[in-house]
């Protein structure tokens, strides 16, 4: 059974999005996504300062069996990436919503948050797969 926290927003492409108090947003991939990929062995993150639009491929998570793109869920600028993933990509498997976060966006166009779905809609979307 997938773990889908109710206080996060989601995309149908399996990213989770947390709105921080300072207006930035933190991004990772869902418990369901890491389970489908299997054990991660490599994560490629974008450069800090990258300006991204919703739906743009901006990171890559690779398991033993496959590589998968991570898409920008919102419009904004990368202000921080999770450097710990370079040595410990398995953090995404172990704690997808905590230490396994991937990147943080600043200067977020908050209009683009409206496109995200809530936990119930995300659960429904993975049950349809």
């Amino acid at each position: 059974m997938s773990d889908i926290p109710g206080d996060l927003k989601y995309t149908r492409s399996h990213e989770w999005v947390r709105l921080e108090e300072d207006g930035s947003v933190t991004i990772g991939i869902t418990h369901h996504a890491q389970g489908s990929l299997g054990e991660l062995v490599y994560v490629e993150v974008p450069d800090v300062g990258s300006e991204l639009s919703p739906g743009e491929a901006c990171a890559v998570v690779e398991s033993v069996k496959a590589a998968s793109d991570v898409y920008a869920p919102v419009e904004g600028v990368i202000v921080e990436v999770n450097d710990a993933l370079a040595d410990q990509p398995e953090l995404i498997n172990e704690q997808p919503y905590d230490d396994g976060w991937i990147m943080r966006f600043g200067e977020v166009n908050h209009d683009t948050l409206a496109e995200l779905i809530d936990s119930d809609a995300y659960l429904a979307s993975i049950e349809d797969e």
Partner: protein
Amino acid sequence: MRTPLYEQHKAAGARLVDFAGWDMPVHYGSQIDEHHAVRRVAGMFDVSHMTVVDLSGIRVRDFLRHLLANDVAKLKTAGKALYTCMLNDEGCVIDDLIVYFRDDTHFRIVVNAATREKDLAWIEKHAKGYEAVVDERDDLAMVAVQGPRARELAATCLPAAGHDDVLALKPFNAVAIADYFVARTGYTGEDGFEIILPGEQAPDLWDSLARAGVVTCGLGARDTLRLEAGMNLYGQDMDENTSPLESGLGWTIAWEPADRDFIGRGALGRQKADGVANKFVGLVLEGRGVLRAHQKVLVDGVVVGETTSGTFSPTLERAIGLARVSKTIGDRCDVDIRGRQLPVLVVKPPFVRNGEIKVDIERRGERS
């Protein structure tokens, strides 16, 4: 389709995926732990999706000497096995397989699941001229038990009367024990057995192996193990458009005796005489990242080939791959991974055999 072990896989919490129409376990939790279990102790794989075919007839040996690029005349004692390619008229690979000699009128072959239909059609077409009988044994299951302790643990699960015989087996030999056909073969680079047995007996054997401490392993670990062992995967590393000579399989072609007329010999002989432009090599990525199939291989920015397989190697903790490249390649090159050219070492497979790393991954120096 489901193998006789489907319920075992489900009960063990396997993640099942479709493989050539079969519901097969890709892992039971951790593909990497399963990989290490085979390198360090013992693991077992359900490979019942593979196709077992028994061939019989007065002229069956002549038939196989025509059908296969390696020469079954080398098989002189009952149970002896041979790895070979089955070629088309162009000298390219229809499939790779293991053939077992049982007696002068009986052989057994094991071919890939994904190529079952075309293999059977090809074999039957050529069997006619030799009056050979082709009997697909879909009543049989197959379990591979692999690892440094695999033989010892598996022997305790086989009929007691056969213990001495299975433990006395030399590599690439098989013996029939009651309903079991036990071969000292595998696809992992470790010692072990491949056990062919009646499907209805497979669940009991599987459960008893698990009780003996053999770790259940999925096809995910099987792929990383075979790649570390430098073993080709049909459909990826070679296919109907590539010959054994450009797939690292030249050693499987029996050129002698010169008058043996095997299918593909003419085309293969011409290719050999003209010289093969490509060679098949192993690659180790120096830095972070993962090699995958179909990435471009470059030297000084010029494309010289392509990867055919790639993965993260749990033993080396580096990305490794196999590639078909220009034979002029030196000991270093680059691979294009998503638009970035990353340095790799060119090595001779295998990467790992019997638990030991066989390539020098710390090699550094000037680019050749």
